């Protein structure tokens, strides 16, 4: 993975290229012609200017198994502002799906593995009591539940996303399919960020947790098991520094 985030150069030589790629518009004001408001718009643009290096290595369209995407195209979220651009799309590392995939394959194979058991006397005497129609319905229900389980697990992974934009951080938590929690925090409210990597697996596949500490009574954020946690922390730190520089 290339270096996704390098401190933005002070010179204005690279700025036009970036602004050409992502036209950032300052919030519109009814009487924007006055000097103080022009200055305010200029300050807003400076504050939310997207980092050059980050823009240089976009990953484009995320696929169905993408867990880490830089400036992903064709992704939007509700309440996204007109001038807001998604810089990072984060999901759990795909390796975290291996346990449920293994379990699902096992569940799909269980009826096949039980076939030798059907020849035993105890099981065959039990099967004589139930009709073939009943067995068909039971088996169909079993497979539908297994397919439902696979869909649920995939959707849980797919929709549990973290988004880092040029304005804020969005955390969509979707622990069970019947509950969701969507949280936002502005980059200005972030106090500290930290990356944790524990265990052999996280070290080998380079994934871990990123904790985002926010100011005041606001809830802290945690992106769990995301790929390249150090890069994400680095990117967040640079974005925060950029925002604070223009405060």
């Amino acid at each position: 993975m290339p270096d996704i985030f390098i401190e933005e150069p002070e010179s204005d030589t690279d700025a036009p290229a970036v602004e050409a790629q992502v036209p950032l518009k300052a919030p519109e004001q009814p009487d924007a012609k006055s000097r103080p408001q022009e200055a305010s718009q200029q300050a807003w643009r400076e504050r939310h200017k997207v980092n050059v290096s980050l823009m240089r290595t976009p990953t484009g369209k995320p696929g169905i198994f993408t867990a880490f995407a830089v400036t992903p195209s064709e992704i939007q979220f509700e309440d996204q502002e007109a001038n807001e651009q998604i810089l990072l799309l984060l999901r759990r590392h795909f390796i975290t799906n291996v346990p449920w995939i293994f379990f699902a394959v096992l569940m799909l194979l269980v009826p096949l593995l039980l076939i030798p058991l059907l020849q035993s006397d105890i099981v065959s005497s039990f099967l004589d009591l139930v009709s073939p129609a009943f067995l068909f319905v039971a088996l169909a229900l079993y497979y539908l539940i297994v397919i439902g389980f696979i869909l649920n697990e995939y959707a849980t992974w797919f929709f549990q996303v973290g988004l880092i934009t040029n304005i804020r951080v969005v955390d969509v938590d979707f622990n069970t399919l019947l509950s969701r929690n969507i949280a936002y925090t502005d980059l200005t409210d972030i106090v500290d960020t930290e990356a944790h990597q524990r265990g052999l697996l996280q070290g080998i596949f380079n994934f871990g947790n990123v904790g985002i500490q926010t100011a005041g009574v606001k809830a802290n954020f945690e992106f769990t098991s995301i790929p390249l946690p150090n890069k994400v922390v680095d990117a967040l730190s640079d974005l925060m520094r950029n925002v604070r520089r223009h405060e």
Partner: protein
Amino acid sequence: MNDFSAIIAIGSKAVVLLLIALYFIFSTLIFLNVRRLNTFVSITYSYLSTIIPLLFLIHLLLVLSLFFIALVIL
């Protein structure tokens, strides 16, 4: 003995139908939640924004079909 068999047959049919009905309700709630989330994180690229809720919908319809099949054949 015949009465016992009849009770078992009716009981097992009722249990299976109840299980399918409960699973149908659960699947409906999940489908609605997925549809809502799909709107929230609108992944506008190609087929994905359509195919995931569609898979849930197909799954839901299969559960509903199974309920009626079970009602008829059991």
